[in-house]
């Protein structure tokens, strides 16, 4: 992040600002507090079976849900933002929408990857498997993750920023429109889901459990906002660098046409007219 210096690209050459640094500090603090709440202060999910008296439940694995569930919501939120911004790209065609779409897709994909990893770790003790093929939400999230992997790969290809913006917007919109189909197809496929329809309903609801989950949402939201802010600013700086580069290249082109090229162009014309200029013509060329 570093300090703000007014060199180079204009107002800003860093993605940090006093407010974003404050937001960052609050976010990191919230992450630490969430860690303590989720992994130390709350009780594990242990229930007693009403007839047999055996212990059952998710035990310590349930602590991951304080992270996993908020991450899911934030990942989908980021992708939703990307879809909205992609519509903006196609309708308004301004760089602001494109930078927003790119930033939210990238941060959303990081969240989505974390969702898959935490879900898989959670599923091992609770479902007794790393991966469950028949689960709707799991499969939909995986397909969404793969589609946006393609989106980000596309983002790294062409060097024409405008064409890239439109192509990426189409990919994002197709992905978002395709997700209900994926969802429906996986749901019919096995006609079952391991995800509890209402995870909270089955758990022992204590005040601290509920608070921790709530706090998890707040924390994940803060992390999302913080990362989006910085990623957006990176994109905005890239735009500024692009404009700056174009302006510099135009100046360079002008210099080119002012000196050697003009001499050469005019030299060409005078060269046709008389031998005296022939020397000037070749001289101009070797001198350039």
């Amino acid at each position, binding site marked *: 992040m570093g300090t703000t210096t007014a060199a180079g690209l204009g107002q800003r050459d860093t993605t940090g600002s006093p407010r974003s640094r404050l937001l960052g500090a609050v976010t990191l603090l919230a992450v630490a507090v969430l860690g303590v709440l989720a992994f130390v202060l709350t009780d594990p999910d242990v229930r007693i079976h009403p007839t047999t008296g055996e212990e059952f439940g998710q035990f310590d694995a349930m602590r991951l849900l304080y992270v996993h569930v908020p991450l899911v919501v934030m990942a989908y939120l980021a992708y939703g933002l990307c879809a909205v911004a992609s519509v903006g790209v196609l309708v308004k065609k301004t760089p602001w929408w494109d930078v927003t779409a790119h930033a939210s897709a990238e941060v959303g994909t990081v969240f989505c990857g974390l969702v898959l990893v935490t879900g898989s770790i959670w599923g091992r003790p609770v479902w007794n498997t790393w991966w469950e093929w028949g689960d709707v939400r799991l499969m939909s999230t995986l397909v969404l993750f793969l589609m946006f992997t393609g989106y980000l790969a596309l983002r790294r290809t062409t060097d024409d920023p405008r064409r890239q913006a439109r192509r990426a917007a189409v*990919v994002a919109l*197709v992905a978002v429109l*395709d997700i209900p189909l994926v969802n429906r197809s996986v749901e*019919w496929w096995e006609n079952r889901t391991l995800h509890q329809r209402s995870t909270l309903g089955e758990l022992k609801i204590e005040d601290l459990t509920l608070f921790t989950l709530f706090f998890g949402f707040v924390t994940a939201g803060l992390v999302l906002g913080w990362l989006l802010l910085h990623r957006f600013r990176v994109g905005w700086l890239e735009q500024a660098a692009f404009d700056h580069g174009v302006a510099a290249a135009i100046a360079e082109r002008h210099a080119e046409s002012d000196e050697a090229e003009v001499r050469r162009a005019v030299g060409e014309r005078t060269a046709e007219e008389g031998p005296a200029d022939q020397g000037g013509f070749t001289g101009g060329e070797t001198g350039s």
Partner: protein
Amino acid sequence: MGTILSDALLVAGRDLRIEARSRVVLDQVVPFSVLVLVLFGFALDADHHTLRTFAPGLFWVAVLLSALLAVQRSTALDRADGTDTALRMSGLSPASLFLGRAAAVYVQVVALQVVLVGGLLVFYGVDVEDPLLLVVAGLVAGVAVAAAGTLYGALASGLGVRETLLPILLLPVLAPVLIGATRAYEDALGSAAVDGWAWTGLLAVAALVLTVVGASAHGALVED
């Protein structure tokens, strides 16, 4: 609307006539699709029972992989010799260009399916229990494959790395089509007790969505 359809027919006719003459799909893609079926046979240890069980899924994986090649061939037609520029200058609407190309790819995908069904009968020894379902599900799924393939083919063309980008963009989008078409074929081939017609309904929705999105988004890809 009438112009869009007649222009689409013009484009489809062009693509199919070129294919009829050059036979790239017939000489290269069709053998490739059969090869994929044979490779599955090798990989799964040539047991008729296993192959029959998995035949619907293997069939549709073979269709998708071959369709990728057909799409690449289709987009390659309009990259050579300035034809892409000439098309933009021509006044053909992006929607009719999309529909025409997709229709030509569709014909090729259906032809691939016919060959591959033959492959299932011969190599995997499957029995067709519901021929009508087999035909209808294949025709409907083919629309979804052709539409998504044509849209993403246009999207990936003009990028230096299109050959590698096309599969990772296209295949996840076709995931519901793969699932749906496989279930429908499981019903039609009698390898699982599912309602193949309901799945065909899902395929129809996918086909409709992808065709409409493709025809309307194509303009955003070819314009500058």
